[in-house]
């Protein structure tokens, strides 16, 4: 069901006073989906894109702006190495730093085994090395 369709169903439920329990649960579920959908859009809006949506090449930074005095700096800058990683990898690095670089603590936090967490870190290291090359 599309986003618009789900809106229509909710509106219909609001106008009808008597609706079945099944419809009630259905509307709750739809509201939940809309809530998730809303936050997904916000998250995507604020995420720094690293790859071109058309050809998937690595993007470069063209313009930087000061919010205070509106000064704009234009050029062609490389994205930082961490920005090139996926959101999951960035989150992993963030958790790794917060846990003082302890893989054991990371493993207990993520409820994964020590070698699994170490392998995840190895994968990120390999990605960064590949990007550096």
């Amino acid at each position, binding site marked *: 069901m599309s986003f618009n369709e789900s809106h229509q169903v909710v509106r219909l439920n609001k106008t009808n006073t008597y609706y079945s329990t099944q419809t009630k649960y259905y509307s709750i579920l739809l509201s939940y989906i809309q809530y998730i959908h809303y936050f997904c859009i916000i998250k995507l809006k604020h995420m720094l894109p690293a790859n071109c949506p058309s050809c998937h090449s690595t993007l470069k930074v063209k313009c930087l702006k000061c919010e205070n005095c509106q000064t704009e700096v234009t050029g062609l800058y490389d994205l930082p190495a961490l920005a090139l990683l996926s959101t999951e990898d960035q989150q992993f690095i963030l958790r790794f730093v917060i846990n003082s670089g302890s893989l054991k603590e990371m493993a207990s936090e993520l409820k994964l085994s*020590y*070698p699994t967490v170490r392998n995840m870190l190895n994968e990120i290291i390999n990605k960064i090395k590949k990007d550096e090359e």
Partner: protein
Amino acid sequence: MFNPFTRIAGWQAFGLGLVFVVFMGVIGTYSNVSFNGALDAHFVQHMTFISSFTLLTIDLTSLILVMWITGLIISKGFRFIDILGTMTLAKAPLLIIAFAGYFNKTIFQNTIPANPFEMFQSVTFIVIMIISLFSMIWNITLMYNAFKISCDVKGSKLTIAFIIALVVSEAVSQIVIYKLM
């Protein structure tokens, strides 16, 4: 079921694996199942506690040592305890074969060569064979995943190294059993 090592490894896996191995030794003694090789399980006419646990120790030691040496050759930065723990826990499915030995009362290994078709007349034996085959496949899959996660190797390198290590560990365990027992 086939890859618990993403959640459990190291000492935890070793402790849990040891519980399974001890049960295998005890049940195998009473059900007359001999684990005489890193990949072997046979129904025999008589088993003792000493021989059952000696065989299990040889199997496990040869498997862990060979896998560890293979890991050292193809990988770096892994812990011995992960190989020890995950490989010990990977033996758990063989407990099913130890249980299956209880139901195998009619046909023993010694009688099969004299009359090879006799075993296909017993439905129990065929069921036991299927269950044993499933347990062995499960055991090998677990060992493969244990090696993959512990040593962090992938692709054809992983597959080739694992097959070689498995064959070598089987050969080593057979030689040690032959020399010691």
